[in-house]
């Protein structure tokens, strides 16, 4: 099912949680609502589920306006961060519950619940109570309960945040697999950019209730629309060197370093700027260099070394070949990808 969101706004009193939000989510996609805590992403999710009413704007499922439709009529499945399993029911009873409410005959209920339990691989635990399951298993039960009524849209609220690091990796693969097997349009909320990058078809990046950028994960990474997107995505984070452009060259504010780069031509003179460099975009150079950097220390990462170097007074991180000697000055050349210039104040991208 295709989802269209038009000018969606949600206010809690004076506080605007979601502001004039537009988005289109294509059928069968796994879309991630990404953003820092308190950016309104969960509110967005609950408005799609129908448990929060929109203040203004419209939500369409395919061509149907569902903005004011009751949650139970929308055909959505929702998985909560804390799973919200019924503690007094067994796994099977939990999964059957939505069907019981829909008055599906008992035999069919159990048949469908068992099918879906098999899909999420909890069919061995059908007669246990939720308290007897691990976090990952509870998560699977919650997903099964959301899927059993064959929803048009599956919503997951921070599905992995209650799991430990190892299980998180397993479950995010699982969510991807389950989504691809059921082909249900899925939206999931997270503040973890790595999680978002690794499993989603598309990311909707939010900040302060507003959409920042929406596209495939790699596009967001390679071509951020503003400083927020560039800074939010990527581990280690992008390096920012603050300064200004004069005579086609980038100077740091304290004039401790100069960067010569063709991108500088696109940036306006007289503005405070941030020269942003992805850690993997630096390389050593004998001849043509963009700037000089003093190598302070390195961490072995196997294939390469994560290196801390000083550009003037600014410390940046980058990947350099193994065995690069520390306490020396190097000529650094920048690759074509992963180099941007943003406005320091507005975050607008110039190059």
């Amino acid at each position, binding site marked *: 099912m295709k989802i269209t969101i038009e000018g969606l706004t949600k206010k809690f009193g004076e506080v605007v949680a979601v502001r004039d939000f537009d988005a289109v989510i294509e059928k069968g996609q796994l879309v991630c609502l990404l953003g820092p805590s308190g950016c309104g992403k969960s509110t967005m999710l609950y408005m799609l589920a129908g448990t929060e009413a929109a203040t203004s704007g419209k939500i369409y499922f395919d061509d149907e306006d569902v903005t004011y439709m009751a949650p139970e009529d929308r055909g959505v499945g*929702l998985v909560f961060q804390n799973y*919200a399993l019924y503690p007094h029911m067994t796994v099977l009873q939990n999964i059957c519950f939505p069907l019981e409410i829909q008055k599906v005959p008992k035999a069919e209920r159990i048949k469908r619940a068992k099918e879906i339990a098999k899909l999420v691989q909890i069919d061995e635990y059908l007669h246990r109570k939720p308290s007897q399951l691990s976090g990952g298993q509870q998560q699977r039960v919650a997903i099964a309960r959301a899927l059993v009524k064959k929803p048009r849209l599956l919503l997951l609220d921070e599905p992995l945040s209650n799991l430990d690091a190892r299980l998180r990796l397993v479950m995010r693969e699982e969510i991807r697999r389950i989504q691809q097997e059921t082909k249900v349009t899925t939206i999931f909320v997270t503040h973890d950019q790595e999680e978002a990058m690794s499993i989603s078809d598309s990311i909707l990046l939010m900040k302060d209730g507003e959409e920042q950028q929406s596209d495939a994960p790699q596009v967001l990474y390679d071509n951020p629309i503003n400083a927020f997107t560039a800074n939010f995505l990527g581990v280690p984070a992008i390096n920012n060197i603050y300064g200004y452009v004069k005579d086609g060259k980038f100077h740091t504010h304290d004039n401790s370093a100069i960067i010569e780069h063709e991108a500088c031509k696109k940036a306006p003179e007289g503005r405070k700027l941030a020269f942003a460099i992805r850690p993997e975009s630096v390389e050593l150079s004998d001849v043509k260099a963009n700037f000089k950097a003093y190598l302070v220390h390195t961490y072995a990462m196997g294939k390469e070394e994560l290196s801390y170097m000083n550009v003037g007074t600014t410390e940046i991180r980058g990947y350099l070949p193994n065995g690069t000697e520390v306490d020396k000055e190097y000529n650094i050349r920048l690759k074509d990808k992963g180099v941007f210039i943003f406005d320091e104040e507005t975050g607008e991208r110039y190059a």
Partner: protein
Amino acid sequence: MKAKNFVKYALLYLILGIGAVFMIFPFFWMITGGFKTSQEISAFPPLLFPSHFNLKNFEFALETAPFAKYFANSVIVTISSVTLSTLTTILAAFAFSRLDFKGRDTIFALLLALMMVPFEMIVITNYRTIINMGLLNTRLALIIPFTSSIFYTYILRNFFVSIPDSLYKSAKIDGCSNWQYLWKVMVPMARPSLVTIILLNGIAAWNSFFWPMLVTNTSAARTLPFGLYAFMTEGGARNEYMMAAATIVVLPMMILFLFARKYIVTGVSKGGLKG
């Protein structure tokens, strides 16, 4: 270290033991007294056990006073008032915890404030009401004033409030109505609290004395505790008969306690309930 612990536990058990004897002895005296002859019960020094267990006193008690009738009344009154008050408690607790309506918290605070009014004060108005309703000397008079309980509503509401919102939202998305959510999710989850409430309420209803004394003058509507009192005054001061009658009155509650001890104890200690 070990010796010190031994002394500590010996002391502890001694104190607890003395407490237990104090608690149990009246019951013991009552039950054995019911089997004694009139000579045995007034013998000095007192006899702990009767020479032989005869059931004459019980027969006499059951013949003289209509204890079967009292027993039936007690059962009817207890079951009806517990059923009704549990029902109103569940519904009120749900309303005060889940439903959003204007003045909800104000009304709840007012109800809680009413708990400060002692029962003896309400008795007079309740008595007038019962008379005006023409219910004097009926079982209804014993049931109607006890069909709701602010205290149990408060206890259950607090439990309902502690159930995470996400369960409610999740059920809503699945198309669950408030009514279904209450009976399929909240009530089963609150089972331990509810069992405790039902038991404590049941005991209170069964043992209730003051109110039945006010509104029942004839044996038709009397319940066991007041029946026992009536038997005492009507049957003269024959201790062995009274002991037998008292045993008949208390026995059902003692049996109930033995079976439901776990719920009563956890309910009283965890839920902060009092009897």
